[in-house]
């Protein structure tokens, strides 16, 4: 497109836009992965992964689009972008559901629903244990 070739200072407009998108995208990539390293549990680390998958990757790919010389390259970058846009929430959803079913407790320890379920389970286990004890003693 013609207006992307307008020279502003030392660089063309497309180069300015590329620099802007790549620098902001790099900032979000490093911030998101620092969140993956630093945050306390799986569910908050998913927030960091979401930062990487949305703002980081997407700004980087849009920044690369301004440097493409053919339209097919822009189309391929757009395909990658759309694919990551749809698969990243799906993966995070499946992983969160697997983590909850796998026994990881979201939220603080003395509040929330999963703690109640755990307490009920432990009470039921105690009751069963008592029943088994009485039956075994009776027999």
């Amino acid at each position, binding site marked *: 497109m013609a207006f992307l070739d307008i020279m502003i200072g030392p660089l063309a407009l497309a180069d300015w836009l590329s620099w802007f998108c790549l620098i902001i995208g790099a900032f979000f990539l490093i911030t998101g992965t620092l969140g993956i390293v630093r945050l306390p549990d799986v569910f908050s680390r998913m927030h960091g992964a979401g930062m*990487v998958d949305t703002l980081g990757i997407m700004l980087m790919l849009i920044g690369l689009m301004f440097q493409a010389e053919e339209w097919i390259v822009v189309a391929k970058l757009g395909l990658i972008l759309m694919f990551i846009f749809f698969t990243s929430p799906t993966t995070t959803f499946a992983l969160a559901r697997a983590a909850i079913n796998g026994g990881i407790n979201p939220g603080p320890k003395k509040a929330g629903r999963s703690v109640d379920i755990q307490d009920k389970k432990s009470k039921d286990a105690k009751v069963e244990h008592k029943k088994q004890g009485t039956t075994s003693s009776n027999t």
Partner: protein
Amino acid sequence: MTIAGLTISMFDIAMIAVLVSMALSLFRAFVGPTVFDRILAVNVTGTLTVLLISIYGFLDGRPDFLDIGLLYALINFIGTIAVTKYVKYQDLGDPLEGPDEGDV
């Protein structure tokens, strides 16, 4: 842009940022206390690999690498879903206990 005699393009800076992020997420994949931390970190590393392949294509002047990046994105998604299902059910086959049992 030229700094101290070295010409630095925008792809160099993007490549350095992606490599630093991959190192950080691989650290979490090695250290992670639960298996879900490892799956999450490996998924992020795979997504960053797509970006790494794309940027390398631009750096080398051969944007045909984008095809490989697109394929890698597909395989990364399927692999993550498969590993998540395997961790949850210890099986990758069809569900035996009703239609809703095998959903991830």
